[in-house]
């Protein structure tokens, strides 16, 4: 199998690490070799963060390079714009349509770009969801990232039951049901 390249981008603190761990879990269970690369430390304090996930029969480097991602999962739309050029021709861009202002926008020095989603749709295959709103409907704003993962799962070839199994294993027991529900919200929305 040719190596598959996935990127998860977002704002430090949005839970990119949990998402990549669930992904890593499902890939290993399916018997592939997987490598992941994460950002810890300073950038996790509200900075722009990137996680790379690569899997296949044999994987050498742990990073996805420009122009090579099959799937780009963005937890925030400005970050989708920042990293969209990592996608390969025909790759899927899965975006949580949420806005988080970088500090220069909060203080009025810079403008948050308008029409990001429309611009992205001109050049890429975009799949979007307002995961924050969906998460609030489930009663916990934090599970938005698993909702986005659910939508992205539509672009991978692992069966739904497997995903739910892995989520059960990777999240604390008392949050398992909530996270499974969240996953399904995203998954079904992508059908």
């Amino acid at each position: 199998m040719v190596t598959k390249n996935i990127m998860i981008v977002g704002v430090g603190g949005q839970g990119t690490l949990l998402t990549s761990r669930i992904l890593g879990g499902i890939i290993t269970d399916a018997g592939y070799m997987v490598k992941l690369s994460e950002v810890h430390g300073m950038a996790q304090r509200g900075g722009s963060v990137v996680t790379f996930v690569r899997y296949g029969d044999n994987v050498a480097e742990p990073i996805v390079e420009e122009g090579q991602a099959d799937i780009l999962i963005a937890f925030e739309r400005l970050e989708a714009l920042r990293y969209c050029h990592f996608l390969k021709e025909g790759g899927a861009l899965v975006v949580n349509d949420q806005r988080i202002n970088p500090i220069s926008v909060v203080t009025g020095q810079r403008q948050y770009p308008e029409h990001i989603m429309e611009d992205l749709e001109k050049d890429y295959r975009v799949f979007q969801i307002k995961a924050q709103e969906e998460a609030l409907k489930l009663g916990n704003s934090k599970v938005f990232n698993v909702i986005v993962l659910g939508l992205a799962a539509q672009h991978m070839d692992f069966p739904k039951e497997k995903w739910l199994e892995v989520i059960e294993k990777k999240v604390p027991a008392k949050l398992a049901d909530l996270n499974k529900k969240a996953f399904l919200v995203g998954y079904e929305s992508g059908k």
Partner: protein
Amino acid sequence: MAETKIMLGNEAFARGAWEAGVKVSSAYPGTPSTEISENLAKYGDVYCEWAPNEKVAAEVAIGASIVGARSMCAMKMVGLNVAADPLYSFSYIGANGGLVAVVADDPGIYSSQNEQDTRMIGRAAQIPVIEPSDSQEAKDFIKFAFQMSEDYDTPVIIRSTTRLSHSQGPVVLEDRAVPEDRPYEKNIQKNVMMPAMAKKRHVAVEERMNRLSEDSCTFPINKATYDDTSIGFITNGIAYQYVKEACPHASVLKLGLVNPLPRKLIEEFASKVDKLYIFEELEPVIEEQVKSWGISCIGKDLFTRQGEYSANMLREKLLGEKIDVHPAEDIPPRPPILCPGCPHRSVFYAIHRLKLHVTGDIGCYTLGALSPLDAMDTTVCMGSSISSLHGIEKAKGKDYVKNWVAVIGDSTFMHTGVNSLMNMAYNQATGTVIIMDNSTTAMTGHQDNPATGKTLMGETVPMIDMEKLCRSMGIKNVTKIDAFDQEGLVKLLRQETQKEELSVIITQAPCALLKTVKFPYVCVEDREKCKKCGACLKPGCPAMAQNEDKTISIDPTMCNGCGLCMELCHFDAILKKER
């Protein structure tokens, strides 16, 4: 069948050390090395501790090694500078029980103050350096390192990089095997470094390094693979993976031991390939030595000394492929920022209001240097805020520093700040030092330190009382204040900076990300009352935004209810509500 687990490079280092029977581990946190110690502590049967700094950590490991136990210390690369003193001399003494120092470099400077290359220190200190290239090797090579340390009577440095430490990959697990402690015999010729002994030991060190250079030609961690011999690469660490990715058919000499170099193996490899490239991140450590042996090769003429390498770099520079991508232009950057509810924001805003100059230090609070707080003039290395302020006073006089303060975190104060403060007390300084006590080492992900009262093994212990510690130095003006008491801070800062006496201000409030901290309140805006003055926005809280009509809104999912914005509002347009 042996179990395979996906592990972070740092988890794999811990696993390897555990399997190798390590008995004592001491470390000071630092990205990207921190998770090594955190993971090792989880096994429960290895003594693990956080030391106040890397020098102490290295010396603890040295003690354990001298009496015959396997020991280790872990640190980020700048920590090796702090630990350099003991390690340079321990290189002469040599290890009894295997001693491994895991040192993590940061090419690309994701979380550091410089981009130094640990292999250079390994060379200077004549300490062997081993470098793995993925998680499996992280585990295997550290085991090899412990054995090599004992076989060659030497401390060993394992060099990692951010990309290796923070990548996950499969690792085959094995059992732990604890060797008997090696016997300890008093031997002052070997273990007491006075001039007469050190001179003899220097001879032994040179012999050891020569022997290693010879023997390592057949070490399994150095490996030549011949395929297409028109191109050959000598490479190490993570850079090897990029070679495999971009040039899978090239011949490759992958070096696991990067100091000393296996000269004969390299000469043989060079003679068998037509064109030789040295592909090493950061400094031309391999290249310069290979060139000095009269072997022609291409390295830094083509590949940069800066940042991380990639497979695309090889595709572009060697294979002539064009990487045709179009990044979006001119979009606002997103640098890291202080979190909503961070106590540092309030302290820096008080400093900002008084327009004080600041000698800064290293931690989350270094982010106070950035706009809109703009409250830092300098950051050099851990502990330097206090000593630099002292130097400024000695150069410019007492009046000059009435407009300056030093700012340092609790963990950094324990690390080396305390020495600097002793110097100020001793040498009659009059400056003002602010210790920002957020009850944790936040930047690196919440480790404990001597001032938090908890150990790495989870025990509760007496905490060092920083106020008493300062007073014991004879400092009269030591004041504790709530970090969110904005008006109190401004008043206190004015008062203490004007005194012609040394002052310490300890600002207190726990890090907003600590799991034990609960936030019962949330701040809510009242748009009717808002006068659109923007005063509340000035400290740059990311939970706040200005609406099109210039009123403000607060994102309830991000707000931690610290109330700083409320304190700054003159029109009661922000209220604290219970969640």
